[in-house]
């Protein structure tokens, strides 16, 4: 029963290893990938159903007693995120068949893709801080492989910076974990939460908390540490950008969410105040970036940053409403970012350029693409009835309730600017006169719209079905405010 918790990691890991050996036979590899992502989604959904019905599943690896061994904790928050990540994975797998050139597919795209999913699921599920570092490395090493896939000049230039930044923050992560181990003598998150509570969070622990925040802020692209993101997320092929934009930064956000709701919650005036300030700055600077460029892919990549800002705002406010909003927004953002990268990728494939000034009138020949993009744009900006609205509403309501008026107003204005930045693509790219000399003979958007539509379906479900989904999210938020539940389920026996 408790072994279920490792399935979301094990399935993609084994698939990835098998695919390495079959690499020469591309049709077979494609078929296995297709089947396995769907099986994986089904399995993960069943586990999620189980967790939401019967409570947290805890797996003690090797049956070691809790503080000594490694634990995997499939609590509602983790499992819901794993399901969403796998949803994105399914869409990405199907998009990859229709968008990658054969050479890239042959050079181990599918194995790396599976390993990335294994790493992301592992990072969500682990209940051990050092193990979190290990899974970070698993997903980062897969991402290093993916970002250079194809080996163009731009890719080498940007990926080197991406790798150095991530390597540096990983080393800082290890150092911080060893600091923490020296102070409290454990790396198990539940036990950390207990012990930090017992000894009161004094100066040194707050310092360690901020060091951890720096690490996760680098991975999750928070205000002063987001500079590496936009360029390095736009150089690889679209499907890889979509994977990165949907999953990688969210793992950083999830880590902040976990650590600052479970472990370091005894000195809110310092740690969460910093989160609030950074959230405000992230919102403003991210959206300025999105408005500053005419490269459509870069606009989407910059839009990742204010989304992280909203989630940080929710964590910083630290009330049930705001945390529920953060979880909702996290789920929404994983889906919508992948969908937007897909749609923009199809747009670029059709127009043959990523420069907005050279596009126009695409909607005449591609009406479906145009209207799907319009829906995605509204969802991103957080207009009802789409999923972004619910998350933003809860976060901003939390901000007003707790008296953070300035931040709430910054959040509202940023929403408008996000809408402006994204609708600019719609107006200039889809409306107006076509600036293309000739329409491409083979329809380049073939097979690219369906995966995006698949994801948008879930955006609409998350928005319209809020009535049904909200109780679950509310339950997750309640558990985050009162971490006793998490601690008990891990520490019992």
């Amino acid at each position: 029963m408790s072994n279920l918790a490792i399935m979301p990691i094990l399935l993609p890991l084994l698939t990835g290893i098998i695919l390495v050996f079959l690499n020469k036979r591309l049709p077979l590899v494609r078929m296995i990938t297709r089947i396995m992502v769907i099986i994986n989604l089904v399995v993960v959904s069943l586990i999620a159903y189980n967790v939401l019905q019967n409570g947290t599943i805890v797996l003690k690896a090797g049956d070691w007693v809790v503080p000594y061994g490694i634990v995997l904790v499939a609590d509602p928050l983790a499992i819901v995120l794993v399901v969403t990540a796998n949803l994105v994975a399914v869409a990405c797998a199907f998009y990859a068949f229709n968008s990658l050139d054969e050479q890239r597919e042959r050079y181990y795209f599918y194995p790396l893709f599976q390993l990335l999913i294994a790493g992301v699921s592992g990072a969500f599920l682990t209940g051990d801080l050092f193990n979190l570092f290990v899974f970070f490395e698993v997903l980062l090493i897969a991402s290093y492989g993916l970002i250079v896939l194809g080996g163009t000049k731009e890719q080498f230039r940007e990926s080197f910076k991406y790798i150095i930044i991530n390597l540096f923050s990983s080393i800082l992560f290890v150092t911080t974990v060893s600091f923490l181990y020296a102070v409290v003598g454990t790396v198990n998150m539940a036990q950390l939460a207990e012990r930090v509570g017992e000894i009161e969070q004094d100066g040194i622990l707050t310092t360690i908390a901020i060091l951890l925040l720096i690490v996760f802020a680098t991975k999750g692209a928070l205000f002063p540490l987001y500079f590496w993101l936009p360029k390095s997320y736009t150089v690889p092929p679209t499907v890889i950008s979509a994977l990165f934009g949907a999953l990688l930064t969210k793992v950083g956000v999830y880590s902040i969410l976990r650590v600052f709701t479970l472990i370091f919650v005894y000195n809110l005036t310092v740690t969460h105040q910093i989160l609030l300030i950074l959230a405000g700055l992230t919102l403003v600077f991210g959206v300025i970036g999105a408005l500053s460029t005419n490269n459509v892919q870069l606009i989407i990549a910059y839009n990742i940053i204010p989304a992280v800002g909203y989630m940080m705002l929710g964590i910083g406010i630290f009330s049930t409403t705001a945390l529920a909003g953060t979880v909702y927004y996290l789920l929404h953002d994983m889906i919508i970012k992948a969908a937007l990268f897909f749609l923009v990728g199809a747009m670029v494939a059709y127009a043959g350029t990523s420069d907005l000034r050279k596009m126009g009138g695409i909607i005449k020949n591609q009406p479906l693409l145009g209207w799907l993009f319009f829906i995605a744009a509204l969802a991103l900006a957080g207009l009802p009835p789409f999923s972004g609205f619910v998350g933003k509403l809860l976060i901003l309501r939390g901000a007003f309730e707790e008296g953070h008026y300035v931040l709430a107003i910054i959040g509202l204005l940023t929403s408008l600017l996000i809408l402006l930045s994204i609708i600019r693509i719609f107006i200039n790219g889809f409306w107006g006169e076509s600036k293309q000399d000739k329409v491409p003979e083979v329809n380049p958007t073939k097979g690219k719209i369906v995966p995006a539509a698949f994801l948008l379906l879930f955006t609409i479900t998350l928005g319209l079905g809020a009535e049904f989904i909200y109780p679950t999210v509310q339950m997750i938020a309640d558990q985050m405010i009162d971490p006793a539940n998490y601690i008990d389920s891990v520490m019992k026996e």
Partner: protein
Amino acid sequence: MEIVMSVLAGMLFTAGVYMMLQKQILKIVIGTALLSHGAHLFIITMGKLNRGKPPILSEDVTNYVDPLPQALILTSIVISFGVTSFLLVLAYRAYQTNGTDNMEKLRGNDNE
């Protein structure tokens, strides 16, 4: 002994950061290697240095060394070994493709 090790780790960190701030790609790679050595040394120091004791936790052994940092450092060494070798290959390919190993010349701008 812990103090000496901490100072040593600090020196490795300093040298590593200095190397990372250089312009040549290879020097940056060496910088990351030095940094990770510093981090590893740091982990082992944080678990208290007890030389020649068994890493056992049981009732009849009272004088032991904490086994957990040793497990952590081993994992961390394997990871940094893998990443460093990948980075060396990447540095070489990047040099071949871009024709330069100077980070100043690897700045990208929008108008290209």
